[in-house]
């Protein structure tokens, strides 16, 4: 990841959402983007130029624009028409974003469009976030990374965030994923956690039994 001093940045055309610029680099604000927050509080995974990314819950394209600066292609899935209008505008200027208007709960809707990806990134406000991630792992290559941004308050408002976090990690492990990292995104985002997993496969099983 590119940092100038302590500041996380990405290199690309600026002015997407009024982000601050450091020279020609776009400042990636951890208070606005959960992925940026993950790079501040944890390790996450290194975004590389050749990477193919499936991004679920693309919203207004704020984080998507930064991910697209780092990677080869981003398949950005968003369901709601309003943020989709913004996402399309971002994608018009960034030619490596493929905007897909579909429901992340129904991967079969966009299965004919998406290729095998190196990184599956999910940031959706749904109750069954673990299940959505597991089903979308069909697009993830073996040894690929899943980053799940868990919105605990969307899962169940009556459960404490800690319990939701544990349940989700357990669900991912049961599905056979190797959990590499699990961190809260405080102080940048309240009641949000990041879970980084690896999809196991021949040569990628790190010996950790699920």
């Amino acid at each position: 990841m590119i940092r100038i001093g302590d500041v996380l940045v990405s290199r690309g055309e600026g002015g997407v959402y009024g982000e601050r610029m450091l020279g020609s680099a776009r400042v990636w604000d951890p208070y606005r983007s959960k992925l940026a927050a993950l790079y501040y509080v944890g390790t996450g995974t290194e975004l590389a130029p050749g990477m193919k990314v499936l991004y679920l819950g693309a919203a207004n394209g704020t984080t998507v624009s930064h991910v697209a600066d780092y990677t080869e292609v981003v398949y950005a899935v968003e369901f709601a028409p309003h943020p989709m209008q913004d996402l399309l505008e971002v994608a018009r200027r960034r030619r490596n974003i493929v905007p897909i208007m579909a429901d992340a709960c129904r991967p079969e809707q966009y299965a004919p469009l998406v290729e095998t990806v190196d990184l599956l990134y999910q940031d959706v406000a749904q109750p069954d976030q673990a299940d959505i991630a597991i089903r979308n792992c069909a697009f993830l290559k073996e040894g690929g990374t899943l980053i799940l941004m868990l919105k605990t308050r969307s899962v169940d408002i009556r459960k404490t965030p800690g319990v939701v976090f544990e349940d989700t990690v357990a669900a991912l492990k049961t599905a056979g994923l190797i959990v590499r990292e699990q961190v809260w995104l405080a102080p940048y985002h309240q009641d949000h956690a990041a879970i980084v997993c690896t999809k196991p496969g021949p040569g990628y099983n790190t010996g950790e039994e699920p």
Partner: protein
Amino acid sequence: MRSYWFGDLDEGVWKPVPGDIPLRAGRVATLRTSLEDFIPLSWEDAVSCGVCTTRTEYIAALREVCFFAAEQEIRERYAGKDAELLQMVRTLDEMDTVINLLSERVSEWHQVRHPTFSRKYRKTPAHVLVKNIATKGRGALGRTAGQIEQLGVARTDLAREVSDRANRVMPNTSALIGGLVAARLMAIAGGLLPLSRLPASVIQVLGARTAIFAHLRTRSPSPKHGIIFQHRRVHNAPREVRGKVARVLAGKLAIAAKLDYFRGVAVPEFLDTAQARIDAVGIVITRKEEP
């Protein structure tokens, strides 16, 4: 057979889809892919299929299809008659908030200019006070008050339009509870389809979000009604049976919303029986009160 956006693979032979963008987008929407034994596409398949030669070409072609599909989908989602009504209701509610805030501020400003002024023992409604300030106030104060007045006029017009449109878009719900409240219910639910999918118990407490979550978290009593309280039969009912009236009304509203979404026209047979049923709850109440 494996089907992707650019073509089908049938018994080892690729069959490309012609390069027409609307045709490709339309086809993707109809594909039914099972994720059971799903093999994700690789872009080289598109090359074997003969639709492109380089990676850049592949992404460009895919983007064209996706943009077309997304723009079409957005247009369809906004085409629903409830999409604009939703914005109108939210604007109306926001206008109320703004008018109240500004009126209060202007009246405080006015008090500073007139040290002897007080609203105690006077029955001047807020909008009349604003009108007085608008005519008498000098400079920016008078002009601001004038603007608030105009905003009030726009608000009244908007309220009428909301009501009229609700009568057309959701005739059954509007007939039961009035256009304005019907539109508000729809706005809180997020649209006519989401509203039609709600159970009566949820419709009963729509708009009482704080109370319902306080109830779920703590031991506070459950709310009996949300915005359907604005219906005269609910707020005129005696306290002890108000919940009952709200429940019956919500039950009928749930049916009305479904009729509105799936039929879109007023159904007199339903409305007559529903009104009678809601009235019947009222009659039971009066009988209870008589002895």
